[in-house]
């Protein structure tokens, strides 16, 4: 449709536009102008991403819209960005949530508006950068660059315990990052000492040959960093605090995109770079994934804070993603990618809706609410849609992702079971129980929240006993527009998953091949290693 160089330029524009806009905020004065400008930038970015998404060729297994320029030549570091099957859906998700986050904060954020939107734009830049980076050094820089805007977003515009929550978030994440940095230096150095290539390009790193021992240590270091971000049980304790204290926009970014960085890290780096170690640790990872599914769901069941319910449900839902990735079944992998997108939409949407009610009633206590369906019909309809999508009702995006993951888990577990391995099957069965638990906590939540006797916390300045309708108003046009867009995306992914799945298919195959081909140093002839990692060989 367009010339490849134009599209590569468009990808660069997608990446740098938010940063340029952030600098432009310095000269914009009025708060309203800042809000609308930020929204315009996000919409422009979404438009560009839409063009790229439509131009993305599902039959091309390589990198598309690629830009590759030497950045630090002596170290083999390149400014190397491109779309591929791994990241195309996630970039689309990030760009899609961008305008919603900005618009969602229009009325919620009134303090330091300029700094707020600057940080939202900065984190958008860093998130897109993390996804499109095809060079480990660049990936790391973007990965870390996400930290500071989020630190400020939670710390400045958050709730009462925001300082505690934001420091916890940063210190957890940074702990993982430091180990990842050490592992990254070691990885690149050992690539150099075995092959003589100094490179951070993923395509080159996929060809590294390391002993099983080294692979295991490196996977542990990278994995810890990703596991904290996902978050996998037992590294999840920062998440509820961060989510509860974060402002709505922060929660949406966190749940919508930031958590996917962890699973994307496993998908793009952790598992394919260290296949032998992955095979070794697969049972443990599987157990942790299912543990997250069940434990997260159980915790969600007993929460009294509505934000915490969704926060713990995130832990549960991302457990499915991990299960799909480690199943190494094609459907499971594709399901995992789709589940990432779906969770981004659903959890992001739920946090937006919680933000909308919080703006009206100023409490997150579930017990304070009841029967909202009677007084807020429009709100309740959208909330029900998101609830059902979260449960994974067919025709919604949640169904496609979860179903494919479970299908993949069983497909991988059955042959193993026939060979006498019980664990994968047991885990797959355990994961199914998570679906039931998911239905339990979400439906119970919706029932207490939307139905039953009408109970609304009195907003400040209103007399108790006044008519409910005068206390809280239903959604306004801006809020409706946000939710219509979200619902449309959720149904689109639920009804027509074939199209996005096709875009990820070749990447999923690549991943499957990379992870299931042993590459431990002494056992492997170089020719085979080339075949395993050589799809993108230059």
């Amino acid at each position, binding site marked *: 449709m367009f010339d490849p160089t134009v599209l590569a330029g468009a990808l660069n524009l997608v990446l740098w536009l938010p940063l340029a806009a952030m600098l432009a905020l310095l000269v914009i004065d009025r708060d309203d102008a800042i809000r609308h400008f930020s929204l315009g930038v996000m919409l422009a970015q979404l438009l560009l991403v839409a063009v790229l998404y439509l131009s993305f060729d599902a039959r091309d297994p390589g990198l598309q819209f690629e830009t590759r320029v030497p950045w*630090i030549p002596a170290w083999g570091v390149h400014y190397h960005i491109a779309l591929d099957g791994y990241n195309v859906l996630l970039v689309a998700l990030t760009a899609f949530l961008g305008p919603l986050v900005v618009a969602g904060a229009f009325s919620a954020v009134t303090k330091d508006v300029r700094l707020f939107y600057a940080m939202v734009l900065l984190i958008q830049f860093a998130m897109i950068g993390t996804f499109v980076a095809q060079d480990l050094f660049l990936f790391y820089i973007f990965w870390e660059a996400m930290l500071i805007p989020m630190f400020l977003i939670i710390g400045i515009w958050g709730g009462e315990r925001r300082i505690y929550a934001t420091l916890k978030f940063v210190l957890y994440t940074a702990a993982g990052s430091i180990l990842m940095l050490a592992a990254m230096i070691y990885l690149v*150095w050992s690539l150099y000492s075995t092959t003589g290539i100094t490179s951070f390009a993923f395509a080159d790193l996929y060809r590294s040959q390391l002993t099983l021992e080294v692979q295991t240590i490196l996977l542990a270091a990278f994995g810890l960093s990703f596991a904290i971000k996902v978050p996998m049980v037992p590294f999840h304790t920062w998440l509820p605090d961060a989510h509860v204290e974060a402002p709505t926009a922060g929660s949406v970014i966190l749940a919508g995109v930031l958590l996917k960085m962890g699973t994307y890290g496993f998908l793009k780096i952790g598992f394919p770079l260290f296949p032998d170690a992955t095979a070794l640790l697969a049972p443990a990872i599987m157990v942790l994934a299912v543990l997250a599914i069940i434990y997260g769901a159980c915790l969600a069941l007993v929460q009294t804070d509505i934000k915490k319910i969704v926060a713990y449900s995130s832990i549960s839902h991302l457990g499915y993603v991990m299960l799909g990735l480690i199943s190494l079944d094609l459907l499971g992998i594709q399901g995992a990618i789709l589940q990432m997108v779906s969770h981004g939409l659903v959890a992001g949407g739920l946090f937006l809706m919680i933000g909308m009610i919080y703006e009206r009633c100023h409490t997150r206590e579930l017990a304070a609410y009841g029967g909202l369906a009677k007084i807020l019909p429009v709100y309740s309809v959208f909330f029900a849609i998101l609830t059902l999508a979260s449960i994974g009702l067919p025709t919604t995006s949640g169904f496609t992702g979860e179903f494919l993951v479970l299908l993949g888990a069983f497909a991988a577990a059955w042959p193993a079971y026939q060979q006498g391995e019980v664990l994968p099957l047991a885990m797959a069965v355990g994961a199914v129980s998570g679906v039931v638990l998911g239905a339990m906590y979400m439906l119970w939540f919706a029932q207490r929240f939307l139905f039953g006797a009408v109970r609304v916390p009195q907003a400040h300045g209103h007399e108790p006993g006044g008519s409910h309708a005068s206390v809280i108003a239903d959604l306004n046009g801006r809020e409706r527009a946000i939710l219509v867009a979200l619902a449309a995306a959720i149904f689109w992914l639920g009804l027509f998953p074939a199209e996005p799945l096709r875009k990820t298919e070749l990447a999923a195959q690549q991943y499957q091949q990379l992870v299931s081909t042993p590459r431990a140093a002494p056992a492997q002839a170089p020719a085979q290693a080339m075949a395993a990692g050589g799809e993108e060989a230059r």
Partner: protein
Amino acid sequence: MNWSTVATAMLPEHMLLAGVVVLMLQAIFGRARAVPMLALAFVLAAALAALWLYAEGVRAAPFAGQFSIDPQAAVAKALILALAAPVMLMAREQFADSTPFGVLMLSSLYGVCLMLSADSFLTLFMGLELMSLPLYALVLLAYRRADGAEAALKYLIMGGAASTTLLMGMSLLFGATGSLALSAFPAALGQFGDTGSATGMLATGGITLFIAALFLKAAVVPFHGWAPDAYEGASVPVTAYMSTLVKAGVLLAAVRLFADSAVPALLVGLIVALPLASIVWGNLAAIRQASFRRMIAYSSIAHAGYLFLAFLGAPAGRFQAVAFYAVTYALANLLAFAALPRLAAEAASDRIDSLRGLYARSPFGALMLGLAMLSLAGIPPLPGFVAKFLVFSNVMAAGHVLVATLGLVASYLGIYFYLRVIQYAFMGASETVAPAVRGPAIAAAVLCLLPVALLMLFPAALLGRLA
């Protein structure tokens, strides 16, 4: 000795000397005015001269065996002199009529330049003393606080101890090698730990004392005790100078001292243990500080640790790693000091507490301070990260995988207190009504901010020139 070589090869030093003379004449024949700006002009001229020497690739030895210039020395001088510019700008108001400030500062810089060109122990010692002696006075200068004198005295005594240690080391090395040339040091490194022979013993003792003296000057644990007091006692521009350029000068002189030789296996323990202890202790102690300058002092103790760890890397990459690290570290520190709000009472403005709500009072200052802290913490994409990466990848490539990992883990300890400054500046409610950052400070901040931004986008530009 060729006079034309003396004239050209020592041009940066001549510029500084000319500055000293002009400043003195100004005080004698008129009224001392705008001293820091005058000094700034000479510092910039000296930096340009050094840059010219670097660009021309001049290699000359105006005083054979004592003083020589080569591109590496020239680029080191150019960087250090250029980094002195923000210090002068910061001092513009406080030291406007203080001839001693300008003269002492230029003399101290002269000492740094001398060290970086030293070819013999004598020149090295002379440079080190010329750098340090004015500092003892600078710490006291224009300072009305009671503990300023204590700080200066402490610094003087510790500095004296360092000088004697260094002299003792030099004598032992002279005994071992029979030479006072700088090359005697790498030659003696080969004999380090050889306790079987008399020369081996002398070399071992000499090198140990030498390194102890360097650790003292750079404030590495356990020789760090003077730094927090001296930093807290001095005025802001002097602290900024001490914590950055002096440290960079000592480290770059140490690189020149080690020349092309790797750290011998027996010495590795010393070069690993103390810098690692420095990183850990510096980062931990900084958490507890209530004074901004004391915090920066402990942070600089930690950074001295990183810088010395760089010596474990391959000799070929050592200068690049140390120089790049020193530049990014100095830029961040200078940026922080320039962005610091000035209150009427110096003691009050030094409390980290007084930074609460800084963003509301002075958004620009808060942003600069935040960037500086992030760079010091080594968080990407700020240049401090690239520097840390360079140091640790060199260390790892030299086979010290565990050391590099421990160093990185220890650097994690430092994240908290840097973030705490950001937390105060952005998330706290303002308690004091402080004036916004003033003009010269903004100029100084911009002067640091620009290179920080450039290094963030194009680190290769500087890295390539240092290789």
